């Protein structure tokens, strides 16, 4: 009935007239073109700057983005002509916020519109710094990140750069080659940055509140966050809790990277050397790894890596190779799925041995692994349990860095029909025998009783 009903509705929309069909097919073609374009190239980037000078002080970062094919649209964050959408369509695919101390956004942009931008599946690179303003705090807070109080900064008296010897020790050095626990080892988010030079960081700290956030760069055991002007206060975050750069992958797979330092992306840090201060001068100056770190971070946040898609999802009866609208208990079912990963240019097969299928009705009845293969096509055959109900075939793939996949198929599983039970059971033969012997016996008895006089 549902099908019939839907068909009728569809019929109402497409009136059976040739002219309408032409228009419809034209629109369909157009929609197809538009959709392929947006799917492959998400290259329209809005860059909101606190000060247009940042274009020049952070020119290396922006130019490498341009080289990768992004159209950068630079605006001052309080520009009155700003807008994220026009006629309900987004004008940009990605947003870079280099405006840590902005008090009010210009134009039609405000905090809720930026949050809607994320909730509609777009990505955000949010950069804060010492003296972060309320709107930026609010965005971060809505994304599960709390910045430390005003005018605080990360300080580390054991891991500062040698140039900061006489300063506040707030120019922190993280050396990926030795401080492995301070930088994420996830190869999807940062494939090579762990092998490059030390990372210079100067800025505010954050603490992660949400369940979907994960740290990318953290302070060392000896780092803490404090206001340099009133040192008597107890630091809000200490040791490894001082998160410096973090990421959020929302449930709709929108990505947000939040950094507490603007200078992390600056030309000055990209170009300079970094050397941890040690009393015994055991360290040597090395070229900073900031460039590689920022590059790989921007690749991840703009969906160039770790994006998965599932296609050719099918389940069918293992023998008949057809998908019924209702399964019957104890049937053998095959579930197929194909996974692909976006490598920046094209979709390539995604190979993993961590993919599982769950067959759930209130509780999981079956939990089975797909076998990994090189083509990215996964298939598993299983026997439905001897329980009827509406089962959910669930494939859930959640790994940090990768976009998460959740595919739910709700399929009713019915008990046997009255004529599907086994007809002749060996254990029933004694009963058959007793029935027929009774029949024959009664007949014989009747004959004997009636005719023997």
């Amino acid at each position, binding site marked *: 009935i549902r099908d019939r*009903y*839907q068909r009728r509705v569809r019929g109402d929309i497409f009136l059976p007239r040739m002219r309408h069909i032409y228009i419809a097919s034209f629109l369909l073609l157009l929609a197809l073109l538009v959709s392929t374009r947006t799917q492959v190239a998400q290259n329209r980037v809005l860059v909101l700057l606190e000060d247009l000078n940042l274009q020049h002080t952070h020119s290396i970062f922006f130019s490498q983005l341009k080289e990768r094919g992004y159209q950068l649209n630079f605006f001052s964050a309080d520009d009155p002509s700003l807008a994220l959408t026009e006629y309900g369509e987004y004008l940009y695919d990605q947003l870079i916020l280099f405006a840590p101390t902005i008090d009010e956004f210009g134009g039609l942009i405000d905090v809720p519109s930026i949050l809607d931008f994320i*909730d509609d599946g777009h990505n955000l690179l949010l950069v804060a710094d010492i003296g972060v303003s309320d709107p930026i705090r609010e965005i971060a807070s809505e*994304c599960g990140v709390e910045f430390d109080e005003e005018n605080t900064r990360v300080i580390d008296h054991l891991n500062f750069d040698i140039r900061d010897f006489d300063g506040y020790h707030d120019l922190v050095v993280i050396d990926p080659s030795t401080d492995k626990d301070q930088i994420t080892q996830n190869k999807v988010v940062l494939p090579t940055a762990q092998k490059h030079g030390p990372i210079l960081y100067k800025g505010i700290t954050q603490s992660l509140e949400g369940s979907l956030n994960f740290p990318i760069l953290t302070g060392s055991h000896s780092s803490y966050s404090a206001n340099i002007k009133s040192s008597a206060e107890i630091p809000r975050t200490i040791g490894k809790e001082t998160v410096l750069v973090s990421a959020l992958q929302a449930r709709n797979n929108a990505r947000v990277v939040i950094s507490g330092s603007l200078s992390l992306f600056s030309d000055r840090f990209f170009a300079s050397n970094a050397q941890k201060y040690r009393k015994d001068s055991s360290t040597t100056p090395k070229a900073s790894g900031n460039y590689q770190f920022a590059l790989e971070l921007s690749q991840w946040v703009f969906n160039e890596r770790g994006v998965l898609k599932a296609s050719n999802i099918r389940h069918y009866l293992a023998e008949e190779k057809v998908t019924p609208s209702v399964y019957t208990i104890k049937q053998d079912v095959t579930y197929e799925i194909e996974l692909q990963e976006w490598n920046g240019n094209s979709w390539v097969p995604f190979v993993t041995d961590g993919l599982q299928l769950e067959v759930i*009705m209130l509780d999981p009845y079956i939990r089975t692994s797909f076998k990994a293969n090189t083509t990215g096509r996964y298939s598993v055959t299983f026997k439905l349990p001897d329980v009827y*109900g509406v089962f959910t075939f669930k494939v859930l793939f959640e790994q940090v860095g990768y976009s998460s996949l959740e595919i739910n198929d709700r399929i*009713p599983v019915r008990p046997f029909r009255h004529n599907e039970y086994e007809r002749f059971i060996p254990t029933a033969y004694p009963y058959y025998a007793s029935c027929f012997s009774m029949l024959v016996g009664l007949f014989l008895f009747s004959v004997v009783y009636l005719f023997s006089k």
Partner: protein
Amino acid sequence: YQRRVRGCIAMKTQTFARIAFRLSSTKQEILLRIVVLTLIYIIAFSTRLFSVIRFESVIHEFDPYFNFRSTKYLVNEGFYNFINWFDSAAWYPLGRIVGGTIYPGLMLTAAAVYWIAHFFHVTLQIRNVCVLLAPFFASNTALITYLFAKEVSDSAGTGLVASAMIAIVPGYISRSVAGSYDNEGIAIFALILTFYLWVKSVKTGSLFYSTLCALAYFYMVSAWGGYVFIINLIPMHVLILLFTGRYSNRLYIAYCTLYVLGTILAMQISFVGFQAVQSAEHMLALGTFGLLQLFVGVNWIKKHIGAELFQSFFRIAASIGIGSFVTALAIGQATGYISPWTGRFWTLLDPTYAKEHIPIIASVSEHQPTTWSSFFFDLHLLVFLFPAGMYFCFRRLTDANIFAILYGITSVYFAGVMVRLMLVLAPISCVLSSIAVSETLDTYLKFVKGRKGKKVEEFPAQKEIGLVMVAGLTVLLVLYVFHCTWVTSEAYSSPSIVLAAKQPDGSRMIFDDFREAYWWLRQNTEPDARVMSWWDYGYQISAMANRTVLVDNNTWNNSHIALVGKAFASNEDTAYQIMRQLDVDYVLVIFGGLTGYASDDINKFLWMVRIGGSTDPNIKESDYFTPSGEFRVDSQGSSVLLNCLMYKLCYYRFGQVYTEKGRSSGYDRVRNTEIGNKDFELDYLDEAYTSQHWIVRIYKVRSPDNRG
């Protein structure tokens, strides 16, 4: 012209009268009887049509909606798909095997009427067939009652009185008005038919009638769970006849045929299956069957061997027989082969059983004990005539009379335990009352007429006394007719799916919120959306909104209902966990605070707490009361109540509404109090739809926060 027409009519009447006079007096009586029965047939049908005329041709209440939906399925998909129907839109995610958990008689009857009508190209709508099936069967019941009463009392006049009485008795009308498309509608017909054929077969000892009786019993089994009443009452009748020395071979033939054939047939209904030989409710019938064989066998042996030898033989045989029977029973009970007594049956024997043990049974209003007033309301004059009829039966005992007495006594008891079983009492009280009425009239009409041959009165003022008695009885019977019509019109003819209220100026106001909201669900939600509501509304949602429900009026899984009850009784956080686990998309609540509709979810709420608490000890009924033990929704109410999901969904935004003049905002017109928690927001749900008078409120469950 008018004069000519009048003349024509007059001529026709004259011809009719002339034909009637030409007939012999027996033929006249038969003609009269047919005319009376035809009138009764028409009256029985038409008195049940109040609801159709006042509202529209619509299915009533809750259960009938399921019956209606499954009848449509049967008509569309055919018989085999129907008995194999697995309904995945109910009891999500468990599903329900409909074919194996219903009594299919009702749907098959309606479908048969539909198919027959369509075979003759009468294009009836299936809905109209369903709406009018109960009145149609009520008319048939009236006919069968005529036969039954005639068989019991051996007098056609008694039959006519009984038939006229049952045609309009409110206790039966309450379950058989047009639109009340429920099992009971046809089951009473089947019940009386079975009893009629039983009495007939006991009287005649005919294999033909007892086979027909078994078939009628089969129809009853296929129609209603109340068949258990028959399969216990008939063995009781047999036993009493046996113990009072009224045993005859007629009885043996009637009972053995009925039991063997009836049981085999009953087992064909998949919902009954092996219960017919295993469950405790059927053991009396089996035992009686065995006893009857034993009795006959012993008599046979006694005839062949002498009395002395027989005594010792009897002692040995009896001890072995009883011993093996008790052992078999004990083993059966211990291994669970003979299933334990089900809750509903215990409720019949012990009215307090359900309240203490099974909240889900006690929560249904029709399972409550009957009040005295409702006896009078549903039976009126019959309450007083019933014992009189019983007296007349005792005065002249026959096999058939004993059956009527037995039926009367047991059904009075059952009707006292459960309101719903008033339905079973109504027919027999009509029969017994009709015996009383016709015996009385017989006696006193003779006084009035005077006996033939005796001109002298037996005692002074005989004729006057006769006249007074006859007149008095006539007045009472007329009052009975008025009462029945008034009750039918006022109490039993509202569909409950559409509510009506009288406005101050006397005009009627219609609240059509239920259908409005269900239609909204049908039009505006995903086809596979899952709707959580209290189980009362499950059948209506699946039939009218065509959406998946979690629980419905077929309360087969207590723990699933308890989970829903727990969700409604918990705070929003806990409820959200449960709703996510059950894949709930929409939540539907019924709220009467704005209109004063009293049977809303807040008034039912304590049952949700009790049922929820029956599986989860964390839900305690006492938490929802004030320290002094009151259930109140105002500012004095317990904070657990004021923050639970049900409270929030019912009273969301209600705090800003002015309902009555001179009262502050948020004044609840059912509880007559100002609500205690007015300003709150919902964290996990969004209001999706609220019907015109706020009776139905629908909320959409939010998906988890995108950013964690």
